[in-house]
């Protein structure tokens, strides 16, 4: 086994450092942009655009090591195609929300797709990073090995940091082999019944790598060796989807092109413990859920409807997509932090971006 030969790509580190230093000196806020496909996510940032798309290329990939290292501006699609050629994939099945999505943007946004229910979030797969800080330092944290406890785990801290700590120049991710087989089932079932079925299946250790419920229909994805899957299919029940239909369904859920996601705004994302019982408080046609109920979506309702649900369920809500007519809207989109925790966020931000020029306000106002 050996490293795969790669085209060199393009390393713009020096130019990016210069640009960030100049902005820091002038106190000019920068809006970091990879493919700009997730610009809708988080709060709007007023600042000059710092484009990362030109800083691209896979730096190292050895399938036998289960690790890929690539520059932040590398297209997510290119990374996924390369991995697929070697029977591997990004385990967290990230959404791209557009063909120009980059690997750096994927890690910074920290969003995972249907497979998160089985394989965990983005941060679980971040092994290392090269970071350009807000004061022009280029720092290297972590590495390309699975086990590494030297120093604080800054690279995992960067997953989901929305660019407020630095520019991801390079990331190293753990990858996993593609499953030998996959089956998708559709069942007509009410929300509560679906949650119970999924909970029981998870507890029994079934290889459930995707679940989606909307409008009285539950879709379940199982992965593993084909003979085993055929034995498991009757225990879930329902109708088996053929492969193209299944692939298109999960792609639509991951990329939010499925009709549920395009039908009404605003779109709220709720992170809920175990049961999405609180979701019963809104009309069923406004609700969808994934991850066995741990991620629920509610569309077309206002904040006052959402707050009591998350309070009752002990979860938290994100204003994932605004109403398209809400131009210039700057309210918080992430759940508020307790004061001591927000203070700690400010102190941590200051370590990496003392002038506060990188994506200011993207996560919270004044952060």
């Amino acid at each position, binding site marked *: 086994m050996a490293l795969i030969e790669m085209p060199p790509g393009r390393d713009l580190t020096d130019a990016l450092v210069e640009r960030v230093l100049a902005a820091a000196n002038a106190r000019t806020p920068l809006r970091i942009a990879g493919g700009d496909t997730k610009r809708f996510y988080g709060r709007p940032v007023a600042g000059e655009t710092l484009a990362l798309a030109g800083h691209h290329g896979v730096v190292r990939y050895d399938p036998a090591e289960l690790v890929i290292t690539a520059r932040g501006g590398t297209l997510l699609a290119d990374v996924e195609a390369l991995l697929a050629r070697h029977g591997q994939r990004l385990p967290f099945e990230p959404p791209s929300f557009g063909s120009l999505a980059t690997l750096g943007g994927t890690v910074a946004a920290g969003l995972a797709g249907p497979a998160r229910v089985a394989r965990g979030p983005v941060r679980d797969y971040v092994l290392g990073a090269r970071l350009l800080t807000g004061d022009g330092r280029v720092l290297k944290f972590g590495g390309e090995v699975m086990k*590494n406890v030297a120093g604080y785990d800054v690279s995992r801290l960067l997953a*989901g940091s929305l660019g407020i700590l630095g520019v991801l120049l390079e990331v190293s991710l753990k990858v996993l082999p593609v499953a030998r087989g996959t089956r998708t089932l559709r069942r007509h079932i009410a929300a509560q019944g679906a949650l119970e079925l999924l909970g029981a299946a998870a507890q029994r250790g079934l290889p459930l790598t995707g679940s989606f419920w909307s409008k009285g229909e539950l879709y379940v994805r199982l992965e593993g060796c084909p003979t085993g899957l055929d034995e498991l299919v009757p225990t879930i029940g329902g109708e088996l989807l053929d492969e193209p239909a299944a692939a298109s369904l999960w792609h639509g859920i991951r990329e939010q092109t499925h009709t549920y996601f395009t039908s009404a705004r605003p779109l709220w994302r709720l992170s809920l413990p175990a049961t999405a019982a609180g979701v019963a408080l809104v009309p069923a046609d406004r609700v969808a859920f994934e991850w066995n109920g741990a991620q629920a979506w509610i569309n077309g309702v206002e904040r006052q409807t959402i707050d009591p649900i998350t309070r009752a369920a002990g979860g938290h809500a994100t204003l994932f997509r605004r109403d398209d007519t809400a131009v210039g809207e700057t309210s918080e989109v992430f759940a508020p932090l307790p004061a001591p925790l927000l203070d*700690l966020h400010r102190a941590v931000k200051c370590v990496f971006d003392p002038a506060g020029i990188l994506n200011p306000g993207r996560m919270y106002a004044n952060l």
Partner: protein
Amino acid sequence: MAIDAGLLRELGLVLGPGLLSTPAACVAYECDALTAHRHPPDLVALPTSIEQVQQIVRICRRNSVPVVARGSGTGLSGGALPVAGGLLLVLSRLDEILEVDPRRGLARVQPGVTNLAVSEAAAPHGMYYAPDPSSQVACSVGGNVAENSGGVHCLKYGLTVHNVLAVKLVTMDGELLTLGSETGEAPGLNLLGAVIGSEGLLGIVVEVTVRLLPLPRRVELLLAAFDDVGRCAEAVGQVIAAGIIPAGLEMMDAPAIKAAEAFAGCGYPLDAQALLLCEVDGLPADVADELGRARALLEAAGATSVRVARDAGERQRMWSGRKSAFPAVGRLAPDYYCMDGTIPRRHLADVLAQIAALSTAYRLDVANVFHAGDGNLHPLILFDAGRDGELQRAERFGADILEACVAAGGTVTGEHGVGVEKLGPMCSQFGAAELATFHALKLAFDPAGLLNPGKAVPTLARCADYGALRVHGGQLPHSHLPRF
């Protein structure tokens, strides 16, 4: 150092008999499992509630007294070594399992609960807690969080960081913060990820919510022997490249095989140069499929023999040799020193050859056990501390191994932590800018710098000394050895 009477009185009011301050009572806590470093603590606090922890920390903060947290004291890098004039905060009495919920797939425990106790409490529900460090009978969950502990099943099931959903953390200000959540998701930055593995420098973990997994329905173990270490390492890469993720993939070299066989009588082939234990688990059909493919791959890769454990009893016997490798090697010499570097697997044969050359140069024997799946090496250096200079030689040998790991693109510690032990080698792995950032990050959590000071991250001054030492080390007997 003399302890202020007012401070003693204040702490005594909070802790009552849970405060130890006489040398006779404190000496039991003078070290963790890195016994070469000892320092009797001046004060030992044994709190029984989160409120007590908060009160103690506030008193210490007001009086500028350093605080070192300690769980069971099984750490291998001196992370729980007391510091002069400080208070040792022993969390072993916070040992309650607060909740086990199979439906939500989680357990909520206090930090002093032992790692194995979590799995034992989950077992009646058909579940377990995946991280299994070799000290799991004794080590505490709080200590696991501090060290980001691993074990033999990390390749498939991850480290502590992959299996902890949330922690409650007391900061040096006495604030109680919750990081993460039951679903493992929380708004804001992933501070939980930064706290796990922070060796007690950022806060005191007072409650941990861990993810439980269903016990695998079927487990199979393969034992493959090789007449060449390089071929064995190559075979590991082939298994993984073929899309098999074994639950455990452990390798041992000839000295480790001989020691383990002599100690445990586990049936290892004594003529092998390398041995591979490959465990696959999961649903019966998947396990049968992976077992068959792994077996064929290992045979094709040149294994001299491949054996599948017939039943659970034989599986346990085959594991017993690997699991008792440390005490087994411990019988070969009065002392041993365990290293913990991680490397990209493709460099394994090279690094093992370098270790062998260093062994000759330092005139000290070494046995290697290796978490082959994730590249985590545990060379065990044999020495006799009773002989003049041998401990120092063993430490220099160890530091050179870690240098070789860094040069191969790896790390100086895969799962044991830096503590006081690897402060020097940290200077090789990180540049001044990264180290300065680590110090700044600590101050963001602990502005007065009172939590476990002097551990985990070397000062820049120390690195300057270490650099000078390394240059001087060029005169040492191994200076002719090639480096990469």
